[in-house]
């Protein structure tokens, strides 16, 4: 590209969403008192526009890295942006009825959601650590706020607080890691960090090869802490159960699906693009974290009676599953993570979305007895939820199974058979707590009056889409796999 003439096309998707956020705010501001701004519709419009932009770019026009290689529009970024936008669209579809029933119906919600999406999109497309950090913070700040939006529940504010304190605490570690890497390499660009680390001696800061390695490892370790926190890997996971439980359920859905996807998007890209030469060091560490995460996440979920909290722990466990494939990055491991995130996002949107959709007058279905006999009262919803739970368990025919298979086959391919074994055994454990929900829905009689909300059109659509995605990925995952492969291969191809 010619210097001076800035090619901003790769930024269009994010810009569309950001613009939508601003418009939502303005619409809110200009709506007369008592009126209701069409915030959800506007958000949808912005997100759809962003998605269209992603598709247009992906179809060949405007791919590449721009702004001196600080941000990329490679297949990887586009894959994630498409995924994140889809997640956001479904989350927006789920939101109105839930917000109405919980009295959280405010314009800021959608604006924050859109800003969070902007942050997520930046996180997966940034080729540079400053951008990564800022994008991460945009996402985090918006989500901190969203977590605390439900004023009728003490849990919501507590969630925001806990998420915020631990989040900013871990951000500092991440930042220190960035500082160390910058100090070692003199740059924040992912590719240039990789170059310096590869050539080794070029750094004036490194006194010796050993010192360089030590610094690099410190930086890597601190980055690992930061991203470990964002993806909710044990032992950095402890915010997740509380934040997931306390946050408004639609926000939880966004956190479980979107934040996790974006965090993994950044995690994988940074470690793969900037630190490939240290893979021999950090991959074993990731493997250990993965094992611990799978075990603790699943055991934690096993002990829960609150369904949201159970799904929160389960999302911890799934971070562990995802991390098993990180040891096989680049290549099949990355593909597997990308593929799994798609099905995982659909499942979590569906799962939390189902709880959100049932919420009436601020009362959410939170316990197993709340779900008793759901299959007789909401047969379709129960069926959809069953599909999600089956997919979470990793039983065919569902995207969850294919995804898990993909992940574990990547891990085995990298020589980590033990990871696959632990993963499968933990899947068995997980079957127990997932199945309990199915039991409640199908094998217990409903108790008392039907106090659940009828399923609205938007939520119904979102749940239906999620269900279809999960099932299609279980039978015909080919296309998504192909995209994932293209995306995984594109990392580092554009500088």
């Amino acid at each position, binding site marked *: 590209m010619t210097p001076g003439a*800035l090619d901003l096309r790769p*930024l269009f998707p994010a810009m569309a969403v*950001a613009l939508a*956020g*601003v418009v939502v*705010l303005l619409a809110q501001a200009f709506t007369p*008192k008592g009126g209701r701004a069409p915030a959800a519709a506007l958000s949808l419009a912005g997100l759809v526009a962003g998605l269209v932009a992603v598709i247009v770019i992906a179809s060949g026009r405007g791919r590449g890295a*721009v*702004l*001196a*290689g*600080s*941000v990329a529009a490679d297949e990887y970024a586009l894959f994630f942006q498409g995924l994140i936008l889809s997640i956001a669209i479904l989350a927006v579809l789920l939101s109105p009825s839930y917000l109405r029933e919980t009295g959280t119906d*405010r314009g*800021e*919600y959608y*604006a*924050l959601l859109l*800003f*969070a999406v*902007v*942050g997520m999109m*930046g996180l997966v497309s*940034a080729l*540079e650590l*400053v*951008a990564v950090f*800022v*994008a991460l*913070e*945009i996402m985090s*700040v*918006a989500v*901190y*706020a*969203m977590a*605390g*939006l439900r*004023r009728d529940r003490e849990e919501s504010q507590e969630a*925001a607080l806990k998420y915020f304190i631990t989040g900013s605490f871990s951000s500092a570690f991440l930042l*220190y890691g960035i500082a*160390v890497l910058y*100090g*070692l390499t003199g740059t924040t660009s992912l590719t240039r960090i990789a170059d310096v680390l590869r050539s080794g001696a070029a750094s*004036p*800061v*490194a*006194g*010796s090869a*050993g*010192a360089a390695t*030590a*610094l690099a*490892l*410190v930086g890597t370790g601190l980055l690992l802490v930061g991203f470990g926190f964002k993806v909710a890997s044990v032992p950095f996971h402890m915010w997740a159960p509380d934040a997931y439980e306390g946050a408004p359920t639609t926000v939880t859905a966004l956190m479980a699906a979107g934040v996790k996807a974006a965090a993994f998007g950044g995690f994988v890209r940074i470690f793969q693009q900037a630190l490939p030469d240290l893979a021999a060091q950090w991959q074993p560490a990731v493997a250990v974290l993965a094992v611990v995460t799978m075990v603790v996440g699943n055991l934690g979920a096993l002990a829960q009676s609150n369904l949201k909290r159970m799904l929160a722990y389960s999302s911890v466990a799934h971070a562990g599953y995802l991390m098993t494939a990180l040891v096989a990055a680049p290549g099949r491991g990355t593909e597997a993570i990308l593929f799994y995130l798609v099905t995982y996002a659909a499942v979590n949107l569906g799962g939390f979305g189902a709880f959100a959709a049932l919420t009436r007058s601020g009362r959410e279905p939170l316990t197993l007895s709340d779900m008793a006999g759901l299959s007789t009262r909401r047969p379709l919803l129960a069926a959809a939820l069953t599909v999600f739970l089956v997919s979470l368990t990793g039983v065919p025919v569902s995207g969850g199974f294919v995804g898990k298979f993909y992940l574990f086959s990547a891990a085995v391919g990298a020589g980590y058979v033990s990871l696959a074994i632990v993963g499968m055994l933990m899947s068995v454990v997980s079957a127990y707590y997932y199945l309990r929900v199915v039991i409640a829905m199908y094998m217990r009689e409903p108790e008392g009056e039907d106090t659940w909300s009828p399923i609205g059109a938007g939520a119904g659509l979102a749940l239906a889409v999620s269900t279809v995605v999960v099932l299609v990925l279980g039978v015909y995952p080919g296309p998504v796999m192909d995209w994932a492969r293209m995306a995984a291969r594109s990392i580092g191809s554009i500088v």
Partner: protein
Amino acid sequence: MTLTLFHAILFYAFGGLALGGALVMVSQRNPTYSAFALIVTLVALSAEFGLLGSPFIAALQIVVYAGAIMVLFLFVLMLLSVKAEARVEGEGRVFKLVALALGALLAAEVGSALLAAKTPMAGGFDASARAVARLLFSPQYLYVFEATSILILASLVGAVALARREGGR
């Protein structure tokens, strides 16, 4: 910019001041005192920045941190009329000891790596506002710079949404 002994003395003095402020901050039960101690540290750090040849950042530090952020903290402290932490007998002693040990361990680990590193000082270092601004507004950081606008907007909206009183619209 040449380095003189005076320079060095100032550097260590402000360094000590910063560290001292920090220690006071974490050892104070009263958050207000802590805030003042933090301000001391921040100002001292600003001086350190200047001594390390970064006048622009040093100024920014005073303006943004000491000037804006800490004022905000103090404002909130006043607003909520925060009292000192109540003293609880033997509260979390083990907890604190573990934290101290872990903190020391962390410092040792990172420190060992830092100590092994060479620390040259590149010549011809120009970190004037002009030079920094040139880089800041180059395409390389344009994206991040623009992103910060969204960040601030998001935090604004978030703060409003959270802190606004019930029923207020």
